[in-house]
């Protein structure tokens, strides 16, 4: 019995303290070091912020470089497939071209085309006006963690980005900035468990809080008592928090009280950060 206890003690001590040719540091030393780093980071000591900012910027760049094969391979596969299909596609296109040549453009077609072009022109003007307060950013990393839903963008405090700024995909809200470095920022997505956004929807202007569920669809909380959510109602930001501009479209309600987001978070390549709200938010 005592021998067994001795063996346990020896194995335990050995696992914690042993060092060898490959193990230059003992486990206990590394555990203490990791704990110190953890508490320094969590309690936000002044010197940790610039250190973390530099480390973040460096690792995000390395991460982008390391992820390039995983982005390149699907594109390369697609290109090869396209090359293989190009002959049959060429024949199909020739036939289609013949059909189009034989067709006469009707007046109705021209009218519709004209209308469409006008619409595009109008939307472009709107977009231009809207973009004057926004900054376009590329998504560097969108590593999907089962715990945290966030993306890294290639703009940071150098470009005037501050914590709390809303982030949009086209005109749809996708999240907000929660961490800024000099050259990059982290955006917390709407479906993250830690995300809370005040929203409004419906003809009566019902107020609620959109809470991230960790899944693909966030849920509506703090609804009026007895309120039953109907399916298919558009949800907008209410702007009650004075962080988000009111009226940014977010998604559409489902009958379970969830919101199907307009913007697919896993498909983001470029996003816009709204610089209009320059108020610093303290988290």
């Amino acid at each position, binding site marked *: 019995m005592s021998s067994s206890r001795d*063996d*346990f003690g*020896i*194995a*335990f001590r*050995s*696992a*914690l303290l*042993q060092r*060898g*040719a*490959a*193990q*230059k*540091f*003992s*486990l206990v030393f*590394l*555990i203490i*070091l*990791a*704990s*110190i*780093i*953890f*508490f*320094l*980071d*969590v309690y936000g000591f002044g010197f940790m912020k610039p250190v*973390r900012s530099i*480390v*973040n910027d460096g*690792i*995000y760049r*390395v*991460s982008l470089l*390391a*992820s390039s094969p*995983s*982005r390149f391979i699907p594109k390369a596969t697609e290109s090869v497939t396209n090359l293989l299909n190009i002959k049959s596609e060429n024949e199909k296109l020739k036939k289609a071209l013949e059909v189009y040549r034989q067709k006469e453009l009707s007046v109705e077609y021209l009218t519709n085309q004209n209308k469409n072009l006008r619409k595009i022109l109008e939307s472009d003007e709107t977009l231009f006006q809207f973009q004057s307060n926004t900054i376009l950013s590329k998504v560097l*990393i*969108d*590593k*999907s*963690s*089962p*715990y*945290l839903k*966030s993306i890294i963008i290639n703009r940071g405090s150098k470009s005037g980005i501050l914590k709390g700024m809303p982030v949009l995909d086209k005109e749809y809200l996708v999240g907000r900035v929660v*961490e800024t470095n000099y050259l990059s920022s*982290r955006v917390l997505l709407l479906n993250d*468990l*830690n995300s809370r956004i005040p929203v409004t929807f419906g003809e009566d202007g019902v107020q609620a809080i959109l809470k991230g569920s*960790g*899944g*693909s669809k966030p849920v509506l909380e703090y609804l009026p008592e007895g309120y039953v959510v109907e399916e298919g109602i558009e949800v907008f930001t209410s702007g009650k928090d004075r962080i988000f501009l009111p009226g940014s479209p977010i998604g559409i309600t489902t009958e379970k009280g969830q919101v199907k987001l307009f913007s697919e978070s*896993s498909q983001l390549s470029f996003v816009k950060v709204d610089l209009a709200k320059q108020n610093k938010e303290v*988290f």
Partner: protein
Amino acid sequence: MSKFNTISKVINLGPLILLYYLSVSEIDSHFENYFEILSFNIQLIIIYFWVSKRPEALGNGHVFFAGLINDVVIGFPLGLSSLSYLAVSFVATYVKNMTVNTRITTDWFTFFIAIFFSNVIFFVLLTNFSETTVSITEMSYNTFFTLLFFPFFWFIFTYYNSIITTGKNA
């Protein structure tokens, strides 16, 4: 001969390269597009297997740094993943010290103990000392699938380990 040595060295570095690459790259093991709850942590399997089978291939210092990198990429407080990984490393080293010859079933069981401790440390530190919230359900699914996929990786890594051993004997 020198070319063979170089190849042998690269093969020996395989687990280490894989661990760092998985920590730093965008590649993830969260397949929400296929099955919403399917996610597993390959890093924990790599650490457990190689620390228990061939510790010279995966030093504790590298485990610590891989954890730091993972924290930066994912957005957790620095040091959290390191502590979680080192917990797995500790259990693996302890099991290695206590046992002479292990089979897949014993490894599977002890791996369960390792990831249980690892996830408890992760969850307790995150919920008590950080403002970040994580879902315990998501963590449970992640733990379950990590445990479920362990034998699959065990066979792959055992085969790879035999290649390293053969290379050393040659």
